[in-house]
């Protein structure tokens, strides 16, 4: 039974179609990445997922039943645009937000402190929000979304604006939450994280679903036609007929083959041309490459339709 299920949802603002016929389902206990270029409808989809806005048509089900406001207490939400009360002490805000989720003040305060220790911001609790750095504020909001121990954690761009150390800290936290059995949905631009940590993904472009499914299944759909070559010397072999596309870097090149079987031919051509090969690695396209390819395709299609 999926924990989140969107069925054919559609949302139109004025004349702009934000989301069109989006269907996806997220299994409990998984980490799910929602990908898409800017303005593709990620935030709109997330808002409809948690009932902030209502789809014009289509159905949203959470925890296996149609959306009800009472379910919100089982969800932790981190919006894309962060906001806290500027003049309020951090601990007071956390208690306030915890109470809104149905906690008592004592429980909220205890959990806030233990989370602050875990995220290494204990000293920030007594300060006012305006005295904190952006990154600190983001951690506070992160805590606010988790205080009531939600089963489903929904985060819109949780890593933007964080330095690598803090981004890794939050990612580790999310990973350990998943191992506790919570389900996590987040949107991002950062393909490396999605590729490493997500069990499932959905790629949205222009309000439509382009790709979705488990990471492995998606990758296996693409041919292993990418080659990473590190070499010195003559690079004339890169212009051979077996090579569709080649990007030259200092000391190497990234190559896209016309077909999966051409790798050995390219290697032979390289050796024959006299280049010194240090590394020759065949792999499937990275998520980033898939992302760019699919987004370009989706734009191309709609433009073709419009034209």
């Amino acid at each position, binding site marked *: 039974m999926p924990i989140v299920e969107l069925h054919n949802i559609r949302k139109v603002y004025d004349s702009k179609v934000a989301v069109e016929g989006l269907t996806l389902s997220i299994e409990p206990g998984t980490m799910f990445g929602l990908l898409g270029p800017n303005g593709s409808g990620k935030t709109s989809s997330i*808002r409809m997922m*948690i009932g*902030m806005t*209502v789809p014009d048509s289509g159905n949203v089900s959470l925890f296996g039943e149609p959306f009800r406001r009472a379910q919100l207490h089982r969800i932790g939400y981190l*919006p894309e645009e962060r*906001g806290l009360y500027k*003049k309020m002490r951090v601990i007071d805000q956390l208690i306030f937000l915890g109470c809104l989720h149905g906690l008592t003040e004592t429980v909220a305060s205890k959990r806030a402190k233990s989370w602050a220790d875990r995220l290494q911001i204990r000293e920030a609790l007594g300060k006012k929000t305006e005295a904190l750095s952006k990154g600190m504020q983001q951690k506070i909001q992160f805590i606010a979304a988790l205080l009531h121990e939600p089963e489903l954690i929904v985060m819109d761009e949780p890593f933007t604006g964080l330095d690598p150390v803090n981004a890794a800290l939050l990612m580790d936290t999310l990973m350990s939450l998943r191992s506790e059995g919570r389900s996590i949905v987040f949107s991002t631009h950062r393909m490396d994280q999605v590729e490493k940590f997500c069990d499932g993904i959905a790629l949205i472009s222009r309000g439509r679903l382009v790709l979705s499914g488990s990471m492995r299944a998606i990758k296996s759909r693409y041919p292993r036609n990418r080659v990473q070559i590190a070499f010195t010397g003559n690079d004339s072999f890169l212009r051979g007929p077996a090579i569709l596309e080649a990007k030259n870097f200092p000391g190497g090149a990234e190559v896209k083959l016309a077909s999966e079987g051409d790798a050995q031919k390219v290697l032979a051509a390289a050796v024959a041309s006299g280049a010194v090969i240090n590394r020759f690695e065949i792999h499937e396209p990275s998520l980033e490459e898939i992302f760019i390819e699919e987004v370009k395709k989706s734009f191309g299609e709609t433009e073709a339709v419009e034209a």
Partner: protein
Amino acid sequence: MHNIWLIAKREYLERIRTKAFLIGTIVIPLVMGSLVFGIGILASHTKSQSHIAVVTSDATFGADLKRQLESGKDSNMKVDVLAPSDAVRSSLDNQMKDKDGTLVGYLWVTPASNPGARPSYVYKARSAGDIATKNVLQDAIQTVTTREQLVIHGLSNSDIDTLTTSINLDTSATGSTQAAFFTAYILFFLMYMVIMLYGMNTARSIIEEKTSRIFEVLLATIKPEELLAGKILGVGGVGLTQITVWMLAIFIIANSRLAGTLGTSHAPVSPAQIGFFVLYFVFGFLIYSSLAAALGAMTNSEQELQQLNMFLVIPLIFCFAMLAIIIPAPDSTLAQVVSLVPFCSPLLMDMRISLTQVPPWQIWLSIGLMSVTIAAILWVASRIYRVGILMYGKKPNIPELFRWLRYS
């Protein structure tokens, strides 16, 4: 309900801890109190102390006028009485030109040519703007000449005193019109002040949440109508706290010994009137705050809000204009209809209650109408709020606002 309470509590506690609240609650009454006292004390102690000269050939008149001016009810002047001559005139003129001289003017009395007619009085002042001295002088001359004439007609001094005492018209027996005026005006100004201060604060606090963008976290747990209601109650609670402190201060001041020296008489106000005052005040506050909340929900910045705040003021001004019609005829059809309009009830129904016997059904009806209005405004405002904040950056036009109402 729990959520409304949480929002209201946060709003109340955060606001009451600010410096602005302390200053507004303590410093403003202090300043206002000392101003009232200062003016009162000054007014009661300011007697004209100017130095003038009176030039007259009538020695009795001169002496009487001098007595009146030097020890009169509201003057404490220094008066020289001189006999007319050219030398005196030029000497006085010179004294007037003297920068360091104390003489502020002189009165020249020329006897009338035919007996029985009034003499002519010419007052030459150092400064044409010295109206106070002129008025005091005029009153004194009037008093002195009247008394002289009365003495001539054979009245004794005690008779004259009895005759010239001013009359005190006692109206307390005809009902507390004065009290009604008094409460209506106080209510109006309190209402106006509180609405401008706290109604606008409600709107501002909603806008603040939009700019800090915390509303998105809040809306993920609570309904917009709960948020707006909580804000109105929280900000309103702060307003009521402040008003209570002010009223207590006024009450203490009014009952203190000092107030006695100002000679203010208390308008008699019955406990029932106070009860209705409080009831209608609370309802008025809620109506106008929810209207302000709706304005806050519609706008994205302080500037936009400023442009719309006339929607708060116009109904108030309308009520104030209506006072003039309702006070003389509190039972007229117009008065009855207007006092039932929810935006006017807080001021006008309360006014009518203190002026006349209002049928209980009208009071209940007004309360019912006000409650329905508050709920309706909140409903509309929360719809506007929810849709408006999630599609920011664009000012809504009227058809869009109506369309938003249909969204849930």
